[in-house]
């Protein structure tokens, strides 16, 4: 490796890391929280068989899972202004990423909810609890435990997908790499470097996922 390339790498590393920590990670966290909220709502509506809303939820999942993320980003950021809805790049990215991953996570949550035995609900009714009380104290904790590994995977996927936000002008880590590369023309080195930083972030996340899985209650061991 030439001295010039080495210099570029050393120079760009703190800059990339800064955008990673200050933009990519907040973008991931905010989008993930939004996705989690949507997933929970959509899964609960389906689990409880709420009329009309349930159909709406299936429609949402159908649309989101059937169209590419990139297209969704373009639609919202470049498309919506023509009907008067103008969003800044960052909130647009949070919205699209959240709604996108939310559809997948809703299916995860729905599966986890449905894996909780119906007997748990019946036992709850028989000791006098209401539907909502049973959901809060019995069904949701068990469903979250079941869904945790899959939700962790979703978060890791989302972290990488934030790089797509570069296409709608969000100045996040990958976009920053593109900008630097525009000056120095060292694609292999710079994109390799940014890939390594993503890898680092994802590795930390998967450690956290594994740690969380161990720490989370297993309710006396074994699968629930």
């Amino acid at each position, binding site marked *: 490796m030439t001295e010039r390339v080495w210099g570029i790498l050393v120079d760009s590393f703190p800059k990339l890391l800064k955008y990673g920590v200050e933009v990519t990670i907040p973008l991931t966290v905010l989008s993930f929280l939004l996705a989690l909220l949507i997933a929970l709502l959509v899964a609960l509506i389906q689990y409880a068989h709420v009329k009309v809303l349930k159909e709406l939820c299936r429609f949402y999942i159908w649309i989101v899972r059937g169209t590419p993320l990139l297209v969704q980003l373009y639609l919202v950021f470049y498309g919506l202004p023509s009907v008067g809805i103008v969003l800044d790049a960052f909130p647009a990215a949070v919205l699209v990423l959240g709604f996108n991953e939310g559809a997948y996570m809703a299916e995860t949550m729905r599966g986890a909810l449905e894996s909780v035995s119906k*007997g748990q609900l019946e*036992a*709850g009714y028989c000791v*006098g*609890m*209401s539907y909502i009380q049973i959901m809060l*104290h*019995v069904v949701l904790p*068990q469903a979250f435990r079941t869904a945790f590994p899959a939700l962790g995977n979703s978060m890791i996927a989302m972290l990488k997908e934030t790089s797509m936000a570069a296409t709608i002008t969000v100045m996040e880590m990958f976009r920053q790499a593109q900008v630097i590369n525009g000056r120095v023309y060292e694609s292999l080195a710079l994109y390799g470097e940014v890939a390594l930083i993503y890898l680092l972030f994802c590795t930390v996340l998967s450690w956290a996922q594994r740690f969380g899985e161990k720490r989370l209650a297993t309710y006396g061991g074994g699968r*629930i």
Partner: protein
Amino acid sequence: MMLKIKNVHKRFENLEVLRGIDLDVEKGDVVAILGPSGSGKTTFLRCLNFLERADRGELIFDGEPFDLHAASRQDIARVRKKTAFVFQNYNLFLNKTVLQNVTLGLTVAGRMPRHQANDIALRALERVGMAEKLNSFPSQLSGGQQQRVAIARGLASNPEIIYFDEPTSALDPELIGEVLSVMRQLAREGMTMLVVTHEMDFARHVSNKVLFMEGGSVVESGPSGEFFSHPQQERSRDFIRSILEARK
């Protein structure tokens, strides 16, 4: 009369599961509900606690009538408050410890202070011999132990009657005894119980009344001594004989 059940009907799609069941229960009665599988025993029991909604039927509980088909949410809550239900496969809350399983209904549904609920739970668990396992989770217990905790959970709300839906059918043979002995103890203490069971010894020696069902109808009902010694109906005789033969 503590509990008067009249004309319970239930149909699942094209299958008529209950064709008008009647039953009178006095305080302190232990009623064994017998019958071949598919006779509607379990559905009958579940209808009494609104786990299944009957198509028709009436429940008169302490003189107060409840419509088994059209009961309001408040009515259902009132009935459930007076009763406890023990399931075939225990249905303990899997994310809760033994102690929490017994207190959850008290603290969450009954808004009872925790220390008071703990006291009640401890006493209930002592009655079933499970006070040593307060902090275990259901998955760490044997089936017999889980069923005893489930009985304690039922006792904690101080019910007037306990419904048992085949409480020993999911248990390994060597674990059945411990659950039956708890139930026998409850019967001795005067607890009113409705027990769907295949345990003939229990039906014969512990229960004082028998309701024998087949095909969604009552074939014969009456004092259990008479049922076993002088069954009136041909079908009852066949049933008792087949059970006795199966045991040999």
